[in-house]
Structures are given as C-alpha cells and as structure tokens.
C-alpha cells in the first residue's frame, strides 16, 4: 500500500515529554514503513496556523499536533482543508468532517501510581508540580490524588504550578521547596522535579514518560502514555479513506494500550505492588472506573 | 640654566581637515630652561604640544630628544608611551583625571605594571609626598578627585606628570584655573625644580607670569612660529604686539549716534560647573545702532554671557531686559521671539543640524511662523523659494538647498546662519566668534552684514578673540576677564592685551 503522508506540528521542542510521546509513535510508524513522517518543532503560537496550512497545501494527508490555546484557529484551518485529516491534541470536542481530537487520557495509570505513592509515603505529604492548571494536567493530578487517598486517607498534598511547560531549574526549585515542607514523594509532571528528588533522596512518581533509567532508585512508578494506539488508528482510517471527526481520547485508555503503569519492583514492597496490580486488572476488566475531574487541584492544609 | 639642548622640534606641521593648526614649526628646548609658548586662541599651541606628547601624529616634521646616554635620537611620534619613556610629562589644557579615583590612584595610573597582583601604594605615597615637598604642590591624596577644587585638580595633574620622573615638563595653561597666588607658588616651585635640571615648556595667556617666570618666549600665530625672544629683552607691549600681529586697516565705519538701550543686564549671575563658566553680578547695556565688542581670552566667561543672551542658560539671579521688557522665562525660543538673533560660537554644534537640508536649517528658528507652516504642515514650496532667494542674497554656495548642511564649507555654513539671523530683522544680534576659522572673504562678509544691521538700527554684541575684529567693528569695547566685564577706555592694542591678560594696573 502507499505510505500515508503525515506531518506533525509541535509548539515546543521534541524533547518535551508530552510531545516526545507523539514524536516517538510517529517515528515508530515511519520505521515500520506505514507513513512518511515530517515535523516542525517549537512553532510559535503565531506561526502555528501558517505551518498547518503549509502542510495542508503540501498535500499532507494527516496532520497531527496540539492546539491547546489555538482551538479556534485550528478548526478554521480544518474547515478550509476538508481533504486533509486533522488529529489534534485538544481540550474540546471533534468537529466534522475532518477534525479529530485526542488527549493524554492516562488518568487510569495515574490513579494506580497514586496508590503506590499513598501506600509508601511516610510523612503523609506528597508534593505535586505541574506546568499550567489545564484540564489535561488537572485530571491526572486528581486521579493520582484519588488513588493515594483511597489507600491512605491521611495523605496531604502540596500542589504548585510553575506557569511554564519548560523551566527545569524552576521546577527543581519548586520541588526543593516542597521537600523542605515535608514531602517525601514528588509527583513529577515536569522535568526537574525528579532531579530534586534524587538530590534530596526522596522518591518520585513519573508521568507520561518512563524516566526510571535516568533516576535510578528514585522513580517508584510511572503512568506512561502510549500514542501508538491513537496514531495507528488514525493512520489506518486515513489510508482506508474512512477518517472522520472523532474523539480519539479513548485510545489513550489502558484498555486500548494507550496508557500503562510501570512500577519499580525493587523499590515498591510486594504487598503494595500486588494491590496495585489487582486494581489494574479491575480497570482493564471494566470493573473499576477512575473519576475524571478537570478542576484545578489545590494544596491540602 | 645651561645651554645644552635636550629637545628639538623640526618643521612640525599638522592640519585638521582644512584648518592648518601648525605649519612648519621648529623649536628648541635647553636643559633647565623655562620656555613660554604664547599665541592667541587657536594659534596652534596645544596642537604642537600634543604632537610632542604623541597624541597627534604630525603630517610632517620630526622631534629629536636627548636620551639617557646623552645622545640625540628621534622620538617615535604618535605614541604617548614613547614620549613618557623619553621623560616627557604633559599637563593638558583640559583635565585628564578620572574623577572616581583618588589623587594617588590618578597619579599612579600608568606608572605601574598592569599585570601585577599587588600594588605598592605606600611606596608611591611616600614618593608623592617627597615630590609635594620638593615642588610645594600639595593636594589631598585620599579623596576622589571629583570632590577636589579645580585648583587642587590642577596640582594633581602636575604631580601626575612629575611622578613619572620627567626631564621635560609641558604645561598647557596650568594657571588658567588658579588664583594669582597659587600661580606664583607654582612657578616658584617650578623654578626650584629647574635648578635640578628640569626643563619646562608652559603655555599661558597671562603676560605677567610669562614675564616673571620664563627664560625665553616663543610666539605662535596662525599655526606658524612668528618669533622667539629672551624674556630679559621682552616687555608686555612687545609680546602683545607679536601675538596679535601688525595693525590692520579699520573698516570704514560711519559713526552713528547710539539709540535707546536694547539689551540690559541687571546684576546677572550664573554659576557654572567651574569658575570659567560662571558670571558674577554682571551689568551690561547695549544700545540701538551700536556694536559692543567683548574682547578677552576665551574661557573667561564668554560662553556664559553668550549662553544668557541666546537663551541657552538661565540666570541664577538678576534680570535681563530686551527692548525694555524683562525676560522672565529665559529660553532660546523666547529670545528668538523677543527679536534676538544669535550667531553661535560653535556653528557645527549649535548652529546647524548637519544632516538636515540647507532649506530646513534656514527655517529652523521660525517653525511656528505662519509663513512656513499651516496646521503643522510645512509649506514646502514657500520654504524652498525662500531658501533659493536667501542662498543667492547671502551668497551661500554649496551643492544646493536640498543638500545636507554639513556638506557646506565652514564659511558657507556661517553664511547660512547669517541668512537665517538677518532675514528675521532682529533688534539685537549676538555674534559669538563670528569669523573664527573663516577665510578673508567670508570674514569681510560677516563684518559687512553686522555693520548693515547696525545701520538698520540693531544693537550688536560682538564676542571675539580677534582684537583686530573688535577694534575695527566696535563702537564700544568691554574686556572680559575671569568672569568680569570692564569697559575699556582705550583702543590701544597693547593696553587691551594687558587688560585681557588680567593685568590692568
């Protein structure tokens, strides 16, 4: 079959966690020979629409990206290029005929990592550092907090947003502040948090990517996002001519292999691990539903 | 003093653009001698000294100096280091002090190696103290120089030069900012040091001290050396004549009865940054149909006086009346509106905006006139026509009225300014050094215009260093010295020269 032409547009460099997942999935598809993949990184907000249109004009069949903060413009472009399929990370819904959305719906594994953290904290204080308080961040944090509270009702959270997607030194300082305030487990939504945890000898919970190798002995568990399921589905639809506006969010669910939880058996006691595994099975079997809460989380006091 | 030559200048010439600052000047200096260098403002004294010291590169000529072994060697020109190494020290006309440093640091600057981690300030302080004792010059060593008085700063400058173990000391107007007593002490001490073999060249406009303290006098005029004379054979009259040159013909100037006062100063004081920029309690009156000449060596308060009349400076106390009306808010535009035409001293700095066109410079003083603008927009056709007319009328020659004014020659820039000033039919004209740097023709033109304005009934304040100009144009002459104005009762050059040097008996 002919290769599908796919272009991706990222507002940040490809090193950024969130984007790196999409980038990785697309690279995998390209290596497999399914698609021709090209991308633009660090595209300024102002330029985003131009790049979208450029790719559409170039005849790219599927355009993937993230349009948080650009929702209106992106939908306008999609309307102008109905022959092109758009699959965009977005907080809003799909728009016909060709604008589909996805999101990192990994609240399920986040819940599971919360259970790990809740069981293992000794100070009963958990620090959480996020970029901005947007739905995709908030809901993961809430799922994590729910998981922790379910196993340990006494646990308290300190929450902070650094108002940047990409300022590791700042995230690190913020983490230090929380560790100083008593946190012994850090929820590492941003780069820099785990570094602080390593330096202070506390534990951390990973998010979106698996950084256990970078911080040996520190990452208890991670909620990992796999874009492969989403990307492959979309590519299949495009090449089959059956692409329509749809919400691809579900392909990030654990049931579709879009999300998973890894934990470090050497750090997590066996009883905790088995409790978590049990809950994982329940989720996969549809016996347990993790709550979705998009509101801004705040510290307990 | 002995007759052993230690420095020889051989045919030094230097031009700046079209200005010939020095032309083929040769001069010798002997051991233990105090040589005075005299000349009017702009005669080229400073330039000559700067060439010895390596600040300026001569266009031609050479300098020879005695080296440590006693042999005569050419001095490498254009390098202050070479001059310093050869034992030449220079005290510049304008202070070269870092005001954020104390005197000791200023003195040590450059005398110590920069790659050392430690400085021996104690040793340096001891040496400076010795020099102070020997020379009689003293200044506070630990206070930032910015807080010292000008007199103290001047002494620091001299100490700085002496600190480098000089054989030859060049002093460019060292006493300009000193009181007579301070000057006497300074020269007394320099006299002592020459006994130990120091040779000194000093520049001064004060004939009294030249006669009292030098051994020999050299005079420059228009960049060339016009003569040398042993001080023992000189008197003030002789030197003054050498400096200002032979008498020239006066302009044919109709005598006119002066009209009513057009400009009055009533006890006007200005305090500038230094004494040279200050005026104290000046009274002045200029009448219609009269040219008042202000003679004097520049730097005696002329700038402040001109600043007041042109509106650039505000008086601290006192009143200024133009045509009988007190000017309350002294500023340039108010002065222009009151009918004062101003020919600035520095025509490049204050007279024109060089990058703007000739036509624009013609109208820059009357921008609010309905003649040149309507509702904020320039009436370009009128302006151009007017500019064309004026360039013809005032003979401004150049690449045209659309060309940037900076392309004009100095004389033509001055004509542009004259055109602007005289077309406004001012009641009072301030002409500050109006012919400086102009050739004969252009200078004559300026004189003609000033006389025409006088004939029309205007009053003129003419500030000039050129005594010929003052004598030939002025109805009355006042002499400016050290911030004070005195009415000259004589028109004798030599006596005026004495007044200018502050030696009125």
């Amino acid at each position, binding site marked *: 079959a002919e290769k599908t032409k796919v272009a991706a547009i990222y507002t940040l460099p490809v090193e950024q966690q969130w984007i790196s997942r999409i980038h990785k999935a697309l690279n995998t598809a390209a290596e497999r020979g399914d698609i021709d993949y*090209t991308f*633009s990184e*660090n*595209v*300024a*907000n*102002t*330029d985003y629409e*131009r*790049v979208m249109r*450029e790719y559409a*004009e170039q005849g790219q069949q599927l355009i993937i990206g993230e349009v948080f*903060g650009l929702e*209106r*413009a992106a939908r306008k472009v999609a309307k102008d290029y109905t022959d092109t399929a758009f699959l965009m990370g977005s*907080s809003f819904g799909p728009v016909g005929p060709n604008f589909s959305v996805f999101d990192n719906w990994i609240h399920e594994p986040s819940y599971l990592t919360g259970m790990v953290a809740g069981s293992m904290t000794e100070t009963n204080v958990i620090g959480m550092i996020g970029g*901005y*308080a*947007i*739905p995709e961040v*908030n809901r993961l944090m809430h799922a994590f907090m729910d998981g922790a509270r379910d196993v340990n009702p006494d646990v308290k959270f300190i929450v902070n947003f650094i108002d940047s997607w990409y300022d590791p030194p700042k995230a690190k300082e913020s983490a230090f502040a929380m560790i100083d305030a008593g946190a012994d487990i850090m929820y590492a939504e941003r780069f820099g948090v785990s570094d602080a945890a390593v330096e202070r000898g506390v534990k951390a919970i990973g998010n979106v990517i698996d950084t256990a190798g970078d911080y040996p002995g520190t990452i208890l568990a991670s909620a990992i996002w796999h874009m492969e399921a989403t990307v492959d589905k979309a590519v299949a639809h495009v090449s089959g001519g059956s692409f329509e506006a749809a919400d691809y969010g579900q392909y990030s669910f654990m049931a579709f292999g879009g999300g998973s939880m890894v934990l470090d058996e050497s750090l997590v006691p066996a009883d905790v691990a088995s409790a978590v595994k049990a809950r994982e099975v329940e989720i996969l079997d549809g016996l347990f539903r993790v709550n979705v809460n*998009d509101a*801004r989380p705040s510290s307990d006091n | 003093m002995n007759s052993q030559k230690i420095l020889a200048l*051989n*045919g030094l010439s230097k031009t700046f653009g079209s200005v010939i600052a020095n032309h083929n000047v040769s001069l010798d200096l002997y051991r233990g001698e105090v040589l005075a260098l005299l000349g009017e403002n702009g005669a080229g004294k400073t330039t000559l000294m700067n060439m010895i010291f390596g600040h300026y*590169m001569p*266009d*031609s*000529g*050479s300098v020879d100096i005695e080296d440590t072994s006693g042999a005569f060697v050419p001095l490498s*020109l*254009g390098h202050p280091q070479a001059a310093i190494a050869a034992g030449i020290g220079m005290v510049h006309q304008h202070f070269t002090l870092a005001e954020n440093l104390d005197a000791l640091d200023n003195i040590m600057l450059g005398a110590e190696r920069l790659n050392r981690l430690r400085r021996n300030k104690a040793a340096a302080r001891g040496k400076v103290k010795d020099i102070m004792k020997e020379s009689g010059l003293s200044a506070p060593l630990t206070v930032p120089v910015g807080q010292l008085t000008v007199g103290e700063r001047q002494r620091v400058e001299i100490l700085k030069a002496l600190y480098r173990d000089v054989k030859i000391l060049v002093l460019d107007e060292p006493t300009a900012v000193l009181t007579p007593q301070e000057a006497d002490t300074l020269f007394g001490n320099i006299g002592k040091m020459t006994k130990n073999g120091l040779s000194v060249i000093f520049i001064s406009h004060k004939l009294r001290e030249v006669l009292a303290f030098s051994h020999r006098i050299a005079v420059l005029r228009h960049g060339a050396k016009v003569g040398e004379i042993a001080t023992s054979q000189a008197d003030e009259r002789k030197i003054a004549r050498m400096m200002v040159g032979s008498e020239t013909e006066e302009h044919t100037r109709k005598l006119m009865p002066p009209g009513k006062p057009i400009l009055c100063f009533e006890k006007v004081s200005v305090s500038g940054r230094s004494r040279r920029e200050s005026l104290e309690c000046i009274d002045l009156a200029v009448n219609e149909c009269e040219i008042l000449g202000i003679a004097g060596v520049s730097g005696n308060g002329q700038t402040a006086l001109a600043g007041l009349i042109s*509106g*650039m400076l505000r008086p601290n106390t006192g009143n200024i009346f133009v045509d009988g009306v007190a000017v309350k808010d002294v*500023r*340039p*535009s*108010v*002065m*222009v*509106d009151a009918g004062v035409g*101003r020919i*600035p001293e520095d025509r490049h*700095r*204050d*007279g*024109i*905006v060089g*990058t*703007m066109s000739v036509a*624009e410079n013609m109208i*820059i*003083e009357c*921008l*609010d006139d309905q003649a040149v*603008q309507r509702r904020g*927009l*320039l009436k*370009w056709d009128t302006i151009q026509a007017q500019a064309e007319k004026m360039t013809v009328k005032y003979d401004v020659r150049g690449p045209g009225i659309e060309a940037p004014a900076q*392309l004009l020659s100095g004389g033509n820039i001055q004509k542009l300014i004259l055109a602007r000033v005289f077309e406004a039919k001012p009641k009072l004209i301030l002409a500050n050094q109006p012919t400086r740097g102009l050739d004969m023709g252009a200078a004559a033109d300026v004189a003609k215009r000033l006389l025409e304005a006088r004939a029309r009934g205007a009053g003129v304040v003419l500030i000039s260093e050129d005594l010929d100009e003052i004598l030939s144009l002025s109805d009355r002459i006042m002499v400016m010295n050290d911030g004070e104005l005195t009415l000259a009762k004589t028109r004798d050059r030599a006596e005026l020269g004495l007044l200018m040097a502050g030696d009125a008996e």
Partner: protein
Amino acid sequence: MIRIEPRQSSSALMTYGIPVLSAIISLLLASIPLTFSGAPIGASYFEMFKGVFGSKFAFSEMLTRATPLIFTGLAVALAFRARLWNIGAEGQLYLGAMAAVAVGTGVFDVPGVILIPMIMVMGCVAGATGMAVPTLLKTKFGADEVVTTLLLNFIILIFLQYMLEGPFKDPMGLGWPQSSPILDQGMLPPLMDRMRIHSGLIIALICAITAQFMLARSVWGLKLRAIGENPSAARHAGIRVNRTLMSAAIISGALAGMAGVSEVAGLKGYLTSDLSPGFGYTGIVVAMLAGLSPLGVVAAAIFIASVFVGADSMSRAMGVSSYLADLVVSTSLLCVLVGGFVARFKFVRLIQKKEVTQ
C-alpha cells in the same frame, strides 16, 4: 597605523546601497550554517524563495508576519530618530493587546464601526503610556531609558500573566491562561478568503506612509529629526527638546501598542502570554535595517518576514533546524551595523612621512 575618520559626504549609493548589500551578505552568510547541517546550498535557497513567493498563500503568510513588524519597526524607528532608545516595544505591544482585550471582549457590545476604533484608540493609549513613563523618568531623573524600557518589558509580561490568570481569564478556556475572544464585530476585517492576512496590514502601511510624510513634511517631524540629529542645535534654535522627546515617545509607544492590537484583534482573536515571539525586539532589527526611515521599515519588515518565513519553510523542506531563521535575522542585524559604519566612516592609512633633514 590606521585611523578612522568620518566621511565628509555620503552618496545616495552609500545610504541606500549599503543596507541592501549588508542584507545580501547576511543571506550569503546563511550558507555557512547550511553547510554545517549538510543541506544542499542551491536547493535550500530555492526552497527559501519558494517558501515566500511560491504561492499566493505563502506570500500572504509572509505579509501577515510582516504586519506586526511594520508596527514595531516604525515604533522603534521614530523613537531612535529622536535618539530615544526604545527597547520596550515588546512590552508596549502587550499593553496595546491588553487594552484591546479589555474593551473588545464584551464590556462594550457595540457595532464594529464603534468597537474597532475604540479598540485601536485604547491600544494606542496603553502603548503610549508604556513609553511615556520611561521617557518621563529620563527627562526628569536622567534614568537611562534603555534599561527602564527593557525592564518594563518584564514587568508588563508578568502583569499580563496575572491578568490572564485573573481578570482576563476566559471562563470558557478550560483553565488555559488565555483571554476571552474579542467580539466578532471587533475583529479587523480579513483581506482574503481562507488566508490569515488582515486589514492590520493596511493600517500598518497607512501608518508608515503617514510617518514618512510627517517626518519629512511636518513641523513635528522636523523638530523630531532635529532633536535626534543634534539636540544642542535644536535647543539653540528654540525647539523644546523634552517636549518633542515626549511626543516622539507617545507616538512610538502608540505604534507598538497598535502592533498588539493588530495581532489580537486582527489575527489571534484572543490574548495569550506568547502572543509575540519577540516582535518588539525584532522591531529594532527592522528599524536599523531600514536606516530608521518609515518606508524603509516596510521594506525591512518584509525582508525580515521573508527571511523568517522562507527560512522556516526551507528548514521544513530540507530537514534543517528551524532555528536557522533566527540565525539569519541576527546576522543581518550585525551586517547592517557594520555596513552602517562603513557608510559613515572611512579608514585612513596614516603614513609617517619622514622628511630628509640635512
């Protein structure tokens, strides 16, 4: 020994030729980084060209990017003409954008004929205030405006972040730090179907032409040029230096504010803290490249936008890092700086003439 002396005269060829030459040289210099990244040079330049002139869309995109640069370039050029170093166009842009959002997102639900002028006026006032304050600090206290305007950029950006998380925050924005959208009737009309190019460009061009005309033909322009070229002579001629400086500051700030208005009400529709990828700073490059002439600003903005859009598109086509575009823009600034020097000064070889003395 070599000495540097000012040129007595500069020909038209010098004044116009040298910026053009510098721009060309800076483009040629881009081949160095291209070589490093292993892209074929010829094809790269072709792709660059195609990225700007290859299609109506590409061309319109370039003009869209040039629009804010014309505004900020004009803002900087006018201020610099008066020797007022406005480094704060970036902050003033955001002030303008904030004002546009403050009046344009629903407080006044009036027809577009009223709302659009209202947005523009408020944007200009806000931008002008942003430049008037540092200018006042300069004339009254002697505080260097370079530093104050630079620092104000950060203060304004922090203030913006506060506003976006508080008063301006879009209740429908799902937590994103962004403002509510400008009302539909408040948006500057687009110029072409399916393209982003909007009437902000027309306003920018009108501003440039007006500025050019006012500089050359108005009393204000003459005063502004005079205080910039020679403040001393201007003061001597009776021009009120501080007052003229303040007027230049106000116009400059207003133009920068218009850049914000045009981006918010012309392009994006709402305000985020990354509205401008440094348009204020690039405005300085544009203004210098233009030799501080308003019409030159239009040309320079188009040049910079072309380089940026072209290099950006080329980097996409050739697989070269897109940071190349910024690199070319910065080299062109340095080239123009040196070029400007060559235009104003000449190097003179000083030969010490040794006269033969007998």
